[in-house]
């Protein structure tokens, strides 16, 4: 559907925790913050549930970018799930670097009251990924 409109419209998969970033996305909506329609959100209860496999699978499935959102440090609804997420993503990045994919994955802390920040990240990310072009994995795998 994307290519018809001319230009490359990246597909971005977002994993968010239920309490902060998903709520921040809700707030962006209630404040009618427009942002590019490239994001497809997947709600998890906690960013701690983000398995590096999810990120890999998204990239291997051809997603051009992956967004990971959790609560700010110290604000995790589940006490420290967000730290676990950060730890694992840091480890994953070293692998992604080998494939030149690490700049397609962005993780951010975004709270329930940061609707503006959420919309801003979405805008920035859509721009960044557009600059990078389509995920090279797409051609190799799909």
């Amino acid at each position, binding site marked *: 559907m994307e290519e018809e409109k001319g230009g490359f419209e990246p597909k971005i998969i977002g994993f968010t925790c239920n309490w902060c970033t998903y709520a921040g996305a809700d707030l962006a*909506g209630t404040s*009618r*913050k427009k942002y590019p329609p490239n994001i497809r*959100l*997947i709600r998890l*209860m*906690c960013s701690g549930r*983000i398995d590096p496999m999810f990120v890999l699978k998204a990239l291997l499935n*051809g997603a051009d970018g992956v967004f990971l959102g959790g609560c700010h440090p110290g604000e995790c609804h*589940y006490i420290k799930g967000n730290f676990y997420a950060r730890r694992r993503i840091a480890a994953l990045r070293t692998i992604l670097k080998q494939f030149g994919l690490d700049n397609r994955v962005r993780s951010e802390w975004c709270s329930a009251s940061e609707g503006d920040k959420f919309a801003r990240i979405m805008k920035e990310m859509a721009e960044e990924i557009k600059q990078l072009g389509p995920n090279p994995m797409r051609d190799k795998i799909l």
Partner: protein
Amino acid sequence: MGIAVIGGGVAGITAALDLADSGYKVYLIEKNAKLGGKVAELAECETGIASRIVKIENHPNIDLMLSSEVEGLSGSAGDFKLKVSGKEIDVESVVLAPGYDVFDTIAKSYAIGHPNVVTALEFEAMLRACTASETGLLLRPSDGKPVKRIGFIKCVGSRGKENEICSTACCGFTAKEAWEVKERFPEMEVYIFYMDIRVFGRDEELVAKLKDKYGVNYIRSRVPEVIPENDTLTVKFENKPLQGLRGRGQSPRLENGTIERLDLDMVVLAVGLLPSKTIGRLAEIMGVKTDTYGYLETSLTNPLETNVPGILACGTATAPMKVRESVAQASGAALKAALFSERTEPIPGQETRKLIDVADKPLKIGVFICGCEGEVAECINIPAVVEHVKQLKGVTSVDGETTTMKEVLEAIESGIVDQGLNRIVVAGYSPRAYEDLFRDACAKAGLNPYLLDMVNLREQVAWVHGKEEATDAAVDQITMAVGRARYLEPVPIESYPVTPRAVVVGGGVAGMNAALEIANAGYEVYLLEKEAELGGGLRETTELQRGEKASDVLKEYVDKIGSNEKIKVYTGATVEDVRGRAGSFRARMKSEKVDEEIDFGAVVLATGAGEFVPEGWYGYGQENKVVTQSEFEKMLAGGHVDATTIVMIQDGIPGHRSKYSGIEVVSNALKAKELNPDLNVFVLYQEIKTYGKWEVLYKEAREKGVIFLRYDEGRPPEFQDGIVSVYDVIFNDEIQIKPDLVVLSPAMLPAEENEHLSKMFKIPLKNGFLLEEQERPKLVLTPVDTVNKGVFICDSAVYPAMVDEAIAMSSAAASRACVLLAKNFLETPGIVSVVNEAICSGCGVCVELCPVEAIELVEEPISAVTFGVMTVISGKKKAARVAEGCIGCGSCASYCPSGAMSLQNFKDRQVFAQLDYA
């Protein structure tokens, strides 16, 4: 028989639900044709009240009487006859929640007829309308040009001649509106004209953020008039450098008294609250007293009771207050009303449900796309989405016709019952607010409630993208949800019995009150106090602000507790090693006399706050003429103050200011003046936060000659060589005072044990205080509930407040605990981790990770087990086991190297299915 709740606003709704949910028959009487009161005028997505209204409309125990008015009352507590719009109903008790009316005789000088001048409530509606508009811009009503400069004027119709008292809520809602404006239109210049900023707790943080981060200009000046000139509005105010434009710690802001003009595109009036116009007549019918301001009369130590037994009062009908305080009072009043009544109705959710076995049935996915009363339908081409979704594998029914939540709920139920749907996808509302509601609907129709997925079309698609893109995004997101739905499994739900016993931690006024309330409702209570005696802060006080003797109040509570068989008091007590979950906790209690395991269903945390010892501040501790307000209060109670000049220093000492700090200063100053009218009393301050009716004390103090001097934040007063020097920002000069006594208002510190309790009961802490369940930016509708369902918080555990608020809040915590204890059984939570023991290698990674220590390794006898190419044939193997405390974060599932751990409802396959949509 039953209980009548009069008023269907947020307070009435809360009271009715608490009662109905614990098995009482409720008559909810509302004069308007719809529920929700003033809160329903705010944007629904911000209040989250719609789910409560839907719940009430469908509640078997609530008799909803809309467009009804109370006409008469006879009888007495336990046997009232209430006449409502011609009908007569028999009730045992009555909860009055008639609410407030907005001050409506706004002075002409505010140019109230001008289209660009609106009240705060009207502004909310404008914000909502402009968000739905195509441009999304905030436009001047007069000529449709974008608003560049907006001014908020506070204290319109309050703290003045027409209405002496402070409306309490305006500072908070003005800050919220300013925040919303800045979040959405960062370029807009925002000016807030105020007299004092009377916000507490997290609102205080919001105001600081507005000033520092958002560049909102807070200007301390009462604006006398708004001068309209065509489309522009000019306000005059006292000149001083614009505060928001400057950083902290810069030179003091001086006021030179000249009058400045500022041209604004729009003016929002933070109009004060008045008691509802219906109160006079209602009070007459009910025979209850009203106070001088027309509010229902209650007292400092009985904030929920009227002069008539069996008639309770709550919310903004008793005093101006915010939603948070209002709903706390409503919950508390509900519990008190229940004492007069008997449970006659079944408790919802306690019927035995028979769920359909879906194990070997072919997939029948039903997709329900809701237009959300146009909010989604206008931005997304629903028929196109329906066409697309119909093609998806496993989808047997797509409904794109529903527009309201009620219609969707009905459609789901009939879909499950009549068409045999076995997976449900609801697209429309945010799951954060409404998932429970839809899960209930599934369960009611016999489908396992975890066979539901939700897509948030409104907040995350319709409102953030253009129509074409939104339709594409909607198709994708629903496809993803359908993908997940294919792999959803029924989550085993087991019921477990509720232990009908509560634990109250903290034996101060709040804890004692909570214990009594719960015991009166018929449950056993263990009251745990860490000190050797009950009383907490009451022991430190001699007299309360309305002249009540603290020792009398304390004695009354201690006597009542002593004579109540249901309450067991443990002093020197702590609680350790908490296990289990809501309804069925187990912990180890250690006290002076016992060390034993206790079982309980709910817990109320009512820890106090301690006064910071201001050692070294203004010479405290070194000079005996420097004391704290609480020490000064003792001197006053002794009837003699050995001084001719007293300086009281407000603020200045870092930390959390209690809600009563300002009131304490003013009331002590007045008491001192009463003892000796010739006494010179100076109060050095930044804000005097005498909210609500306490404003009159402030006025009285000024009239009686107490001198209030405001100093700048960056230039606090100094006390050296017996002389206090302060730079007064109104005189624009340094003033020196030689006092005989300096009185400090130290900050309040959260109880030390909060940290321990937060760990034990898994409740987040913020700045040392326990955090309630609901987070910003929504209204706080559950102020005493926490993320851990069986744990309730109140009083200084949350924020140090006045004694009336502490009592009301502890009654609320007791009420919420009783709603839970009234149930015979509860159902196990579905989103928890499970172990596949056959492939668990017993490595223990999950044990280390679990934030709540809910996983343990156990040794199990086995015959043989294979890990990859290796087979172990020993007789035993270690495997993880998930205990009851699991909160479902899923960290263990994402770390488990063998894939043995999984989080129900969020299993790997269920997440992967969403990635496969393309």
